[in-house]
């Protein structure tokens, strides 16, 4: 464990420098994240992030679980986008055993994955507003998220830890009232999002707190391995759904929103625009969705041949990668996750040095980390 004495003192530090311990129980760190900040007055002169408080050994645990049981662990990586995590793992195993899943299952996965993206971004918008001091948007954002989660509950039986995507398709078909529910949900959801957007996005106080704060250049962002909305806020239109379309994403007409400045407001606004795109993808997928079966594997035990596979996908937080090695048994030999939050978080030290303490909170919030995924 690092103590206060281990933090290097720069030559320029005056006698008035103070060490401030932020976290792991600080509300603005969105989980159990700890930072040691050295501050000179209001300015952060040095920052030392510490992770690992939520380490649960998920990657090691996959080695003692059978392939179909590992899905439950994937739910718990990024616990705000559970469907997306299950999806990328299932795709990795399906590629390993060479199974093509039915079209209907692909469409249902797209619909649920995009709805999960909306739910995750809504939570970001709400909590980001809270970080800055806007107390109202979180109510509207959570109202919308709650509606999506109720829909998830009717589909999978759980609000967060679904275990609904199975290797070879889905656990079961959608419930009968799903089309009614979702056609009722989408207009309400759009209204919710528009209300939040109107309230927060161009509010003068909000803009003055976020615009020009935590600016990162395009090159530096790429060097740090940034992906997802954070990278797209720097003007790089990189989205796995577009660059390497997986599933049925090549059949939808959607834009990849990008902004140019790479500051906190841009990172926020890219996500807002992404919500609208996700809604349009859901609508298109609902129109195109065919009938048919949703699972090709049934209850067969998965036992892939000796091989390895890398699979990536676009999660709400960026590009998630799964590297899976099988040794021919019914359990993975090794499963390595490339978490988007971790890579985005790695630039934090650079971003918050020489900013104000209050802005450090804003910058950390704008990265939208989930500690379950950072620490695994």
């Amino acid at each position: 464990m690092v103590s206060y004495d281990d933090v290097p003192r720069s030559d320029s530090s005056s006698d008035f420098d103070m060490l401030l311990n932020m976290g792991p129980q600080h509300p603005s760190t969105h989980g159990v994240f700890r930072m040691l900040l050295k501050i000179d007055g209001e300015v952060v002169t040095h920052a030392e992030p510490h992770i690992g408080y939520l380490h649960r050994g998920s990657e090691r645990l996959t080695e003692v679980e059978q392939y179909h049981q590992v899905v439950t662990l994937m739910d718990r990586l990024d616990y705000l986008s559970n469907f997306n995590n299950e999806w990328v793992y299932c795709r990795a195993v399906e590629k390993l055993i060479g199974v093509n899943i039915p079209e209907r299952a692909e469409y249902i996965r797209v619909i649920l994955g995009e709805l999960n993206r909306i739910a995750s971004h809504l939570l970001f918008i709400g909590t980001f507003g809270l970080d800055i001091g806007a107390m109202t948007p979180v109510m509207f954002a959570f109202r919308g998220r709650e509606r999506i989660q109720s829909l998830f509950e009717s589909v999978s039986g759980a609000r967060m830890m679904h275990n609904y995507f199975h290797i070879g398709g889905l656990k079961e078909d959608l419930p009968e009232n799903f089309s009614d529910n979702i056609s009722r949900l989408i207009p309400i959801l759009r209204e919710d999002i528009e209300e939040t957007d109107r309230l927060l996005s161009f509010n003068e106080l909000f803009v003055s707190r976020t615009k020009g704060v935590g600016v990162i250049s395009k090159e530096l962002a790429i060097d740090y391995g940034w992906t997802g909305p954070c990278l797209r806020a720097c003007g790089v239109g990189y989205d796995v759904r577009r660059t390497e379309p997986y599933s049925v994403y090549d059949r939808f007409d959607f834009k990849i929103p990008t902004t140019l400045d790479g500051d906190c407001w841009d990172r926020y606004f890219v996500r807002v625009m992404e919500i609208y795109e996700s809604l349009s993808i859901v609508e298109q997928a609902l129109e195109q969705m065919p009938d048919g079966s949703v699972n090709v594997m049934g209850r067969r035990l998965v036992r892939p041949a000796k091989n390895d596979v890398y699979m990536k996908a676009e999660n709400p937080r960026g590009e998630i990668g799964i590297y899976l090695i099988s040794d021919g048994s019914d359990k993975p030999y090794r499963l390595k996750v490339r978490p988007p939050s971790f890579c985005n978080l790695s630039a934090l030290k650079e971003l918050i040095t020489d900013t104000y303490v209050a802005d450090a909170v804003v910058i950390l919030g704008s990265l939208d980390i989930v500690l379950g995924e950072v620490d695994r």
Partner: protein
Amino acid sequence: MLGSIKGMFVTLKSAFKKPVTDEYPDKRRPVEARYMGFPALTWDYEVIEPFCTACMVCIRDCPTQCMTASMKDNVLYKEEKSHRRKIVDKFEINLNRCILCGICVEVCNFDAIVMSHEHEMSVQERNGDRVDLIELLDMGKRFQKDTKWIPPSQLKKRSSVSDKPPIVSPSDKDGI
């Protein structure tokens, strides 16, 4: 300034709307039909015994090893009242370990385990979350009564009979 006024306007508008939240302990929102609460064991009202034969499939497939069970010879089978040769003797689930994934229900061959709609299970005792067979069956009976539960295998049989006439393929005739 304009943003603040806009914000106040939203506040004013919301003041006249109905609240979207429920006052929880007084008003409970009903759960969805597929809701996965804590697992429970079902009761066969036709034979008057549990469905479970303690075949251990769910126990082997549980990702967290939260269950244990043992079986015994079925007395009703000897009296030719039941078709189950073995029956569950002891069954214990540690609900603290259970992660509500529903894998046990998927793998069960006898419709014996269900994800009930129970989700308020705080207890006073240290080991109070380790529920035994009697309590599990009680939970299951409550679930069966509340949802008018029909065993999924019967449901499948019924729908296949009513929807389409059975097509006997050559392989079926041979009994393969």
